[in-house]
């Protein structure tokens, strides 16, 4: 790289959001008094002044071509005075002051292939990560699974008939960039082979102590191979977390037998029940690109089960807590296996330490 000659001004930080707010928001900033959701995908916020802001939310694949962004810009010019935003779940929202433009905008968005919905008790966009599109660590593809699942669950995006919001997230490895750990349904890529060690490169590419320290179970040990420092993995101790690979490129884990797991019952909001982590439902499903039928079938079944059984305002995890995990497993027809029993640091805290149990057909010694 040639030495930079002009001294540039750096660390300017992001542009001021105020410049980008639509005038109706500038006028009513902090003065909203209520909202309604007249139809799926449309929010109407009313300000003290009586002014109304119409937000139209469209689904986005998140991975966007600049051509699509230009399309959004053009639509914003046409319908919302050039003003739009993206949500915390990567949908795009057009911010309209003019009620009359809502329906025409929806028509246009849908004809361009960007469906409107994701509000209220629905399934909105799946928070997700890079997958095979961009990350070295991925045990599955993110965009492919998300597209396959959303195609299957599409009716739930454009309607508001679920008992409550149902948030799905996908992460392609245990780093969980999608922060799937608190989702109603989480799909999580899992490596299924311990790291393969490249002794020829390891001593050049990796710091031995950092890599040893990276292992949550102490499975990584220093060794000498052909007179060079290297590492070995005690396979019985490896929980396939990939953390050694994160810090040491010479310990790759990607394998065609990688797959995904399904987790349920997490939530982030404090509404009613305190936030909670998702819990393991299905330990392993194979990677079956391009459409991951095992995954879409499993997720759809869980959504339908929830839709059929939960009470109004009950999130997935609240419903499962009400009926109890044993019944959830029976209803879902998911076999309960040793994988479901925690065996990490605080495992003992997850054992059942009371006799509060609903009766079950499955009760006898060893049964």
């Amino acid at each position, binding site marked *: 790289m040639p030495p930079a000659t002009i001294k540039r001004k750096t660390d300017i930080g992001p542009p001021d959001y105020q410049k980008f707010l639509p005038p109706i928001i500038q006028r009513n900033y902090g003065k909203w008094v209520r909202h309604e959701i007249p139809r799926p995908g449309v929010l109407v916020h009313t300000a003290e002044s009586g002014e109304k802001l119409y937000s139209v939310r469209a689904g986005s694949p998140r991975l966007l071509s600049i051509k699509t962004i230009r399309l959004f810009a053009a639509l914003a010019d046409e319908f919302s005075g050039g003003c739009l935003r993206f949500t915390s779940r990567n949908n795009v929202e057009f911010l309209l002051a003019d009620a009359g433009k809502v329906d025409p905008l929806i028509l246009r968005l849908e004809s361009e292939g960007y469906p409107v919905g994701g509000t209220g008790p629905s399934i909105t966009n799946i928070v997700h990560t890079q997958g095979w599109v961009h990350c070295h660590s991925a045990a599955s593809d993110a965009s492919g699974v998300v597209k396959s699942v959303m195609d299957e669950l599409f009716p739930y995006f454009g309607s508001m008939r679920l008992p409550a919001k149902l948030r799905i997230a996908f992460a392609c490895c245990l780093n969980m960039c999608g922060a799937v750990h608190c989702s109603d349904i989480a799909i999580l890529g899992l490596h299924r082979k311990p790291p393969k060690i490249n002794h020829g490169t390891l001593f050049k590419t990796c710091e031995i102590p950092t890599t040893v320290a990276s292992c949550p179970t102490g499975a990584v040990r220093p060794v000498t191979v052909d007179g060079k420092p290297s590492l070995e993995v005690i396979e019985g101790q490896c929980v396939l977390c990939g953390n050694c690979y994160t810090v040491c490129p010479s310990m790759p884990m990607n394998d065609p037998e990688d797959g995904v797991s399904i987790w349920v019952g997490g939530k982030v909001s404090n509404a009613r029940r305190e936030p909670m982590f998702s819990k393991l439902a299905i330990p392993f499903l194979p990677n079956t690109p391009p459409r991951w039928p095992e995954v879409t079938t499993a997720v759809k079944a869980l959504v339908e089960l929830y839709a059929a059984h939960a009470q109004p305002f009950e999130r997935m995890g609240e419903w499962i807590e009400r009926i109890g995990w044993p019944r959830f497993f029976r209803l879902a027809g998911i076999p309960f296996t040793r994988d479901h029993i925690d065996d990490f640091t605080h495992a003992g805290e997850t054992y059942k330490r009371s*006799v509060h149990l609903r009766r079950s057909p499955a*009760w006898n010694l*060893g049964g």
Partner: protein
Amino acid sequence: MKKPTPLVDELEKGPWPSFVKEIKKSADGPMASDLLSVLERSYDDKIGHWKHGGLVGVKGYGAGVIGRYNDLAGEFPDAAEFHTIRINPPAGWFYTSDVLRQLCDIWERHGSGLTNFHGATGDAVFLGAKTVELEPLFDELLAAGFDLGGSGSALRTPSCCCGKARCEWACFDTMAVTRELTHVYQDEMHRPAFPYKFKIKASGCPNDCVGAIARSDLSIIGTWRDDIQIDKTGLAKYVAEGKPNIQRDVVERCPTRCMRFAKGQLDIDNDECVRCMHCINALPNALAPGKDRGAMLLVGGKAPILGGALLSSLLVPFIKLEPPYEDIKELLVAIWDLWSEHGKNRERVGEFIQRIGLANFLEQIGLDPQPEMVAHPRTNPYIALHEDKP
């Protein structure tokens, strides 16, 4: 009495029965008298004066006696040796006056005359024997039909609530099970061969009147699996009396809110009931556990040493528990074998299970994993490979 004991004497006052009075009652003998003096010293200098026990016991047994010596032996020679004898009581702690007198007479001949009825584990405890008295004392106990309880890294004296003897809620025969297990495992109790102590406690219902879930390695707790029995006449009486307030105190305190009370009728959605006992407790003359009764088995309860206290965790969600109790015996032996082989020194079975993992433990003792065994499935994604996996 050898010396004045003004501090402890303060504790003769007041309405609650006084242990000082008890010691004094036996202080016509030298041992109790010296004990009182030692205690006065402790009250004065705010320090205990007991030392670790050495190896004392009765021939052929490794357990049942806790050796105890005093560091003021020079001053109080009759409290110098003050060993404890743990005597296995009849299940449910039922006695007749005769047998109690027999025990008192034996103890009068061989010790301080002080006892604990009972020790925290449940033994009848004789407090204060000299080493030389242990063998004759034990002979007399055997002759009277009593044997020692456990101590050290052994099975401890199992104990139980009064169960079917005096409680309408007993879902299995706590006293019969306790007696049977105590008798079958005499060797495990008297000759310590475990990594650490192992306690068994049996409560006839989820009220858990012996605190089994908190202080036993195997907790047997009664339950049922059909519907709660409702006696309409009894219910009508409560409704008429207006006490308790059925809606507020019963229905709204049900942990699953699976009851409805309307027009003097109580409807229970028994599939939702977690069989906590509350409604039955609150309306004892109207409700009762179902008729298809049995027990749950839980493992691993213990006090804090070493890794922190544990409540027992569920192992078997339902077992009928009927004589000859082969199922529970098989399970016990499987647990003991595994733990004896792989448990660390001074590692209770609850800590052992946490260390090796519940799933491994189940596999080794031959039980299948069931969702009833966990409060919830794992939240962390650290799922290891194992052999029976595709």
